[in-house]
């Protein structure tokens, strides 16, 4: 266990409480609470540990981004970066009544292998079932994908959406975040947004993140303008030399 300003790093097996106040990421051994993960200690009503790296655990109602892998008659198989794949049934692809005829050929043209979709987990039994029936579900076109550890998704969004709003305003991008840690970015300065997401992934445990990200964006935008003007000037000069 190591204490720094505002946060405590714990390794697996570290004693974090002498009572049974076990929250997420902890376990109780002989009446005392220990950490399960290598991560950051979080104190509230219960003590929990947020791991630095974690695979996504599907939850019912989560909005996620996934990639279509293949079609296998009643369903499409979707990769959602979890240990097990998710399934999108033909009957869940649209809001039509269950008596309507489903145009399978057309759906296969829309949900081709390699296409990214934004959808919702509707059922969680032995299989993870997706649904495109919710109003904001869609097929994603023309954009780029970035990855982040699922436990850090709340930090990208910020308190009441403060971080994501700031990034969108300053860079002019449209950003969609899946709870499974996949982020879709389109329009505006995409490379800058990917740089910011990398920074959040590395430094999310250090306090004052939103301010530092704001500074980084301002700095990059200034440098970007300088580079742009330099690039524009160069060809003009060359022409003059000729």
């Amino acid at each position, binding site marked *: 266990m*190591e204490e*720094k300003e505002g946060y405590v*790093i714990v*390794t*697996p*097996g570290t004693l974090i409480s002498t009572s049974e106040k076990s929250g997420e*990421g902890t*376990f109780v*051994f002989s009446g005392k609470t*220990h950490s*399960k*993960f*290598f*991560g950051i200690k979080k104190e509230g009503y219960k003590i929990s540990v947020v*791991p*630095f*790296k*974690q*695979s996504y655990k599907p939850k019912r109602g989560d909005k996620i981004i996934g990639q279509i892998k293949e079609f296998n008659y009643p369903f499409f198989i979707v990769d959602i970066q979890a*240990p*097990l*794949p998710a399934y999108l049934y033909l009957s869940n692809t649209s809001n039509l009544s269950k008596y309507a005829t489903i145009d399978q050929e057309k759906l296969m043209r829309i949900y081709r292998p390699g296409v990214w979709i934004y959808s919702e987990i509707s059922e969680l039994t032995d299989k993870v079932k997706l649904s495109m029936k919710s109003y904001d579900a869609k097929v994603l076109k023309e954009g780029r994908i970035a990855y982040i*550890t699922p436990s850090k998704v709340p930090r990208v969004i910020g308190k009441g959406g403060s971080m994501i709003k700031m990034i969108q305003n300053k860079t002019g991008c449209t950003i969609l975040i899946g709870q499974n840690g996949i982020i879709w970015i389109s329009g505006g300065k995409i490379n800058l947004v990917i740089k910011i997401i990398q920074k959040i992934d*590395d*430094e999310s445990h250090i306090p004052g993140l939103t301010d530092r990200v704001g500074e980084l964006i301002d700095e990059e935008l200034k440098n970007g303008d300088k580079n742009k003007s330099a690039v524009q000037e160069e060809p003009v000069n060359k022409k003059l030399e000729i």
Partner: protein
Amino acid sequence: MTELIKNGLRIDGRKIDELRELKSEIDLSKEATGSAIFHLGDTVAVATVYGPMECHPRRLEENDRAVLEVNYTMLSFSTDERNRPGFSRRSNEISSVIKRVFENVIFLKDFPKTKIIINMDILNADASTRCVAINAASLALAHAGIPMKDLVASCSAGKISGSLVLDVAGKEDTEGEVDLPIAYLPLTDEILLLQMDGILKKDELDKLLELGKKGCKQIYESQKKSLLEFKSSGQ
């Protein structure tokens, strides 16, 4: 035969209850979920962890817990004579022994119907390779974010020309009388691996176990330290 212990010091100048130099590093591979390298003197092991992922072949899948696949291999350049690459009778045995160690440490019930792969490669062999492989693997598992009871620490103890020593190395391994590798879980005070070749008296075995546990606690502290250093270096 040369004298293995002179004036209380061993061939390489160590005391009887002293470990070789410890060094470890985390996050070597980008493709693997977690990875680590562990040095104990001249013995070096690299461990990589993949998963949790879908279990193939499907017949090995368990409904209520994850399945472990453990591969221990000595690379062909790790020994002074070229080692035939691939799996052998020895590596299969050590893989299955190490698998039983980690089955007791990882919370397998958190990931039903999945598989976790642990690969351990020995880059350089200078006695107690299985201990170093276990140390590297437990660091890689922690880095991969897999829930564990505690970090596993492992080292060997032995008997050389009549006296009990910690961390057998080099000539002591081939010419000594007893070699006893142990893997130890400090939280529950359990011994997860215990193998021995040679002959010992009962009270000597008890003393050797105490000595081994003492060495494991030193290794445990060094593992913890390297994990904390990895994060505080701004990674």
